[in-house]
């Protein structure tokens, strides 16, 4: 339906700001969200035929407002019929303020909406779906197709999330100061998950899914504009930009995965890299350290190396050391082991990997075996490497990753 990219961008940008106005006017987040979604669909049709109106935001608010008013009127009529209480006059919806005049145009409820959609009472799958629809302005069909599930499944996740918000009576306002940091962490994690879903899919013809990275970057950029002094927001945006910069270099013409060390770095997107480096450098110099900044800093060190062999591995080892102390988890240890192997040799890396063998969070994961295979190959243990590549390939549930691991194994046979 939405073929015009310019109209689509505009609609997605306006979606949360129109929704904010409606929710402030009527409460009832769930009904307002439906009304805005209908207004977006109506606009996509009308604007591509008649052109973009002079005040697109005002147009959307008027249409969404009319839907809400219609719905409230029919609900009130139904309630009157049910209750047989004719004396109770309905609120005169025609007295509602004229569209758009109750908030200055620069007012932006995007952040409040994000906190609402990423409320800890919702499951991660629901947080992601609702964020993309209510804040991202995507249709349910678009989200379903991005996550490769039927539209009915995605519609159910969204409606369940909205029911939950209603049932829990989550208020439409910024979280209390004391909870703000924890709640922001959830928002950033949801944006990170959306980015990863898109990034892992963003090669070959699967553009619809790859578009999720663009959405995640757009939403994180919006958060960064609203919270310019938060180092972790800047760090996450930098991490996304620095990772996404490698997008076109990481896939071969046949759709196979190309590891970082073998990528044609001339194909990395310099614009994204420069923006990412500037963001993370600024954040590190003036805000408290956090995991997204550290991961972005590591990505920046990779991005700064003109050739793989120019990589400043001691710097990366040091950064992983800080990251392991700051927010320890087995994936960090795994990457730390690779960096240590590059500085002190494969045996040192393999020794660190052994500490993960008893960690049930990762001990049966294909990535542990894949890294072990790589380090064994570096150490010249072809038999061991072959066995580990094969184990890793069997454990992987990703087709391109399995194919990559099988190819590595075949080279050692």
């Amino acid at each position, binding site marked *: 339906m939405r073929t015009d990219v310019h109209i689509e961008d505009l609609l997605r940008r306006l979606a949360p700001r129109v929704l904010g106005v409606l929710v402030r006017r009527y409460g009832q987040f769930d009904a307002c969200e439906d009304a805005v979604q209908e207004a977006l669909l109506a606009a996509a049709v009308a604007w591509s035929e008649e052109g973009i109106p002079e005040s697109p935001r005002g147009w959307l608010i008027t249409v969404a407002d009319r839907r809400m008013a219609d719905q409230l009127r029919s609900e009130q009529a139904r309630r009157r019929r049910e209750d047989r209480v004719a004396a109770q006059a309905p609120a005169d919806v025609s007295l509602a303020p004229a569209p758009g005049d109750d908030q200055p145009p620069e007012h932006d409820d995007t952040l409040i909406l994000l906190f609402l959609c990423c409320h800890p009472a919702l499951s*991660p*799958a629901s947080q992601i*779906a609702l964020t993309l629809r209510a804040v991202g302005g995507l249709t349910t069909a678009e989200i379903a197709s991005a996550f490769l599930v039927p539209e009915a499944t995605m519609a159910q996740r969204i409606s369940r999330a909205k029911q939950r918000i209603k049932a829990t009576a989550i208020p439409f306002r910024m979280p209390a100061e004391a909870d703000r940091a924890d709640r922001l962490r959830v928002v950033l994690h949801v944006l990170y998950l959306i980015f990863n*879903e898109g990034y892992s*899919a963003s090669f070959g013809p699967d553009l619809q899914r790859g578009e999720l990275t663009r959405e995640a970057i757009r939403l994180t950029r919006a958060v960064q504009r609203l919270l310019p002094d938060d180092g972790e927001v800047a760090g996450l945006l930098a991490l996304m930009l620095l990772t996404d910069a*490698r997008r076109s270099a990481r896939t071969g013409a046949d759709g196979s995965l190309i590891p*970082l060390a073998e990528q044609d770095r001339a194909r990395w997107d310099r614009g994204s890299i420069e923006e990412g480096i500037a963001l993370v450098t600024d954040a590190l110099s003036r805000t408290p350290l956090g995991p997204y900044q550290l991961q972005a800093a590591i990505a920046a060190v990779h991005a700064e190396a003109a050739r793989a062999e120019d990589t400043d591995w001691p710097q990366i080892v040091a950064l992983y050391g800080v990251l392991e102390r700051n927010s320890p988890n087995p994936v960090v240890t795994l990457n730390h082991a690779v960096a240590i192997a590059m500085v002190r040799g494969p045996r040192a890396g393999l020794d660190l990997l052994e500490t993960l063998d008893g960690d049930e969070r990762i001990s049966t994961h294909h990535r542990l075996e894949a890294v072990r295979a790589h380090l064994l190959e570096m150490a010249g243990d072809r038999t061991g490497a072959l066995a580990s590549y094969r184990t890793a390939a069997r454990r992987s549930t*990703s*087709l391109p990753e399995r194919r990559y691991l099988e190819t590595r194994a075949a080279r050692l046979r």
Partner: protein
Amino acid sequence: MKYMLLIYQNPAGFEALSEEERSTVFEDVDTIVKELTESGEWIGGDGLADLSQTKTVKVRDGVPAVTDGPYLEAKEHLVGFSLFECESVERATEIATRWPDARYWAVEVRPLMGAGGVEM
């Protein structure tokens, strides 16, 4: 992660169940499907027609051979599948545990391969 549940039965064993036991099997399935649909985890699923309706197709040197009956002779065989997406393998296993066929025969939980991947 998306999972497929492969549901196995022994046809003679199923026929040997009492009417009440069989109704419970169907009711339990309805309950789980309803729950998974409401939670937004359900993707799809179906039962398979009787084994006697199976055609096995083999192509050798470009020549197709079609025979009646299953590829593998086994005491238990596939009678249905369901497809869902959930947060963890623990949740997938929990769903499988509640599938009534698991009480009499077995169900298998198999993760689906995804087309996505990240460079290493």
